[in-house]
């Protein structure tokens, strides 16, 4: 009873009544969770192979030989996804910030900017990404521009930039709105102008507050780069399609999925971690 830390875990004496009760409860729920998980896994492992088409599915989706043969090529193609992401992301961040600021202008002379910001975000958040990619990716090169301005890489990227900048702008704007007006009052009372208040007081706090939300957007962008395959660029999804046709096997798609997950799951977890950390700090 005297030194609780030296008591080994278990129902040893030295636990308070509450601790002993909670320990029993914890053990009980752990046993239940383990049991039910095991039952589900067993059911899947036993039942799925009983389906009439399982052998065919296994051959065409989970073919180890095809996987080993195509995976290096898929990884190579994925570098294109990464490249497209890397040149789009900074432009999206800047454009999103600019649009968010447009929506916050107060001066009547600059009202057109405010209006433009509102229409811009409404339009590009209201359209399916694939539709924008088609319209811009097929539409603009139709103008017959000379190389390199007829490249689907350029116009496909532009489509992604336009759409994602609209989302980023809305996230940043919500961050700006989340800064309490007393901060603006404090800055104004010191003689700072509206612009200086935004630049030095509001924006630094706003952008920090919405960093996790923006990170989730950029994870989504990484996945949506695959949509460019529909207008030509050979990235991992299109490369998987090529292998599929070549080998008459769907395993390359599973390979592509593995590559995406290897990147997005850690990134999503990290964003969640940031968001939780932020929530704890604010409470």
């Amino acid at each position, binding site marked *: 009873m005297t030194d609780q830390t030296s008591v080994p875990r278990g129902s040893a004496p030295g636990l308070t009544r509450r601790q002993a009760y909670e320990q029993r409860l914890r053990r009980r729920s752990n046993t239940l969770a383990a049991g039910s998980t095991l039952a589900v896994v067993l059911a899947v492992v036993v039942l799925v192979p009983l389906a009439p088409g399982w052998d065919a599915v296994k051959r065409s989706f989970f073919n180890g030989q095809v996987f080993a043969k195509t995976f290096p090529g898929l990884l190579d193609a994925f570098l294109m996804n990464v490249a497209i992401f890397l040149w789009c992301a900074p432009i999206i961040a800047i454009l999103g910030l600019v649009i968010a600021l447009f929506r916050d202008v107060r001066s009547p002379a600059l009202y057109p900017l405010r209006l433009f910001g509102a229409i811009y975000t409404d339009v590009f958040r209201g359209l399916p990404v694939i539709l924008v990619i088609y319209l811009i990716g097929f539409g603009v090169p139709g103008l017959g521009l000379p190389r390199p301005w007829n490249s689907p890489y350029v116009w496909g990227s532009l489509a992604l930039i336009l759409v994602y900048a609209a989302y980023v702008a809305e996230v940043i704007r919500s961050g700006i709105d989340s800064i309490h007006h*007393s*901060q603006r009052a404090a*800055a*104004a*009372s010191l003689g700072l*102008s509206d612009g*200086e208040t935004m630049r030095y007081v509001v924006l630094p*706090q706003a952008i920090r507050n919405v960093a996790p939300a923006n990170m989730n957007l950029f994870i989504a962008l990484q996945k949506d780069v695959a949509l460019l395959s529909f207008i030509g660029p050979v990235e991992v999804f299109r490369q998987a399609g090529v292998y599929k046709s070549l080998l008459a096997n769907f395993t390359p798609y599973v390979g592509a999925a593995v590559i995406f997950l290897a990147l997005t799951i850690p990134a999503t977890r990290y964003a969640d971690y940031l968001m939780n950390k932020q929530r704890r700090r604010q409470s």
Partner: protein
Amino acid sequence: MAKLALQSVTKSFGDNIVCRGIDLSVDEGEMVCLIGASGSGKSTLLRCINLLEPIDDGRILLDGVDISEPGLDPQPIRARIGIVFQSFNLFPHMTAAENVMLAPRRVLGKSRETLEAPVKALFDRFDLGQRMQHYPDQLSGGQQQRVAIIRALAMQPEIMLFDEITSALDPELVGEVLDVLRQLRTEGMTMILATHEMAFARELADKVCFLDASRILEEGPPETLFSNPREDRTRAFLKRVL
């Protein structure tokens, strides 16, 4: 000529009238305390003087110049009048020193180098020399409020406004903030305080104004107003709070 004069200032938020013709005159080096129940209009009056809220009618004269003229650029005037808020309102993403230097750098155009010595001196003067590099959330409420006062003082204001600056503090931290006010008082700063610290007002104010229902019902030197109030409502209020 009064340093600051308010002439029948009126202000309302929609149907809610918060100043009904306020007249007030503050001389250079004077300390005026505004007392009264919550919602009597003390805070709004201070925010109007600082031009954070535009007034509906009447005039506010600073050194005899009308600063309440609609359409006037408020920034240079705000830079001459410091205000400290109940909830500190420090910028949480900046250290104490950065909080203090922001406005002198951006508004007065001073460089970080030229500010270093005077800002250090300000922090030392208020016993916060060791806290300059701390962020607001690493400081106690009393320390935060003293940094907020330093931040306002760094603009070398001609008048300082204090909006119930001890109301959000734990009782044991009130003293250190009031000590700062005492110090400013001896240095001859012109000050207007909205406050619930009656003992403090009684000890140091040159003039105390009792606000009731959005007007100044009674004003006078503290000994008269506290010991021998003219109005029944003043008497009733003082009886409640003393």
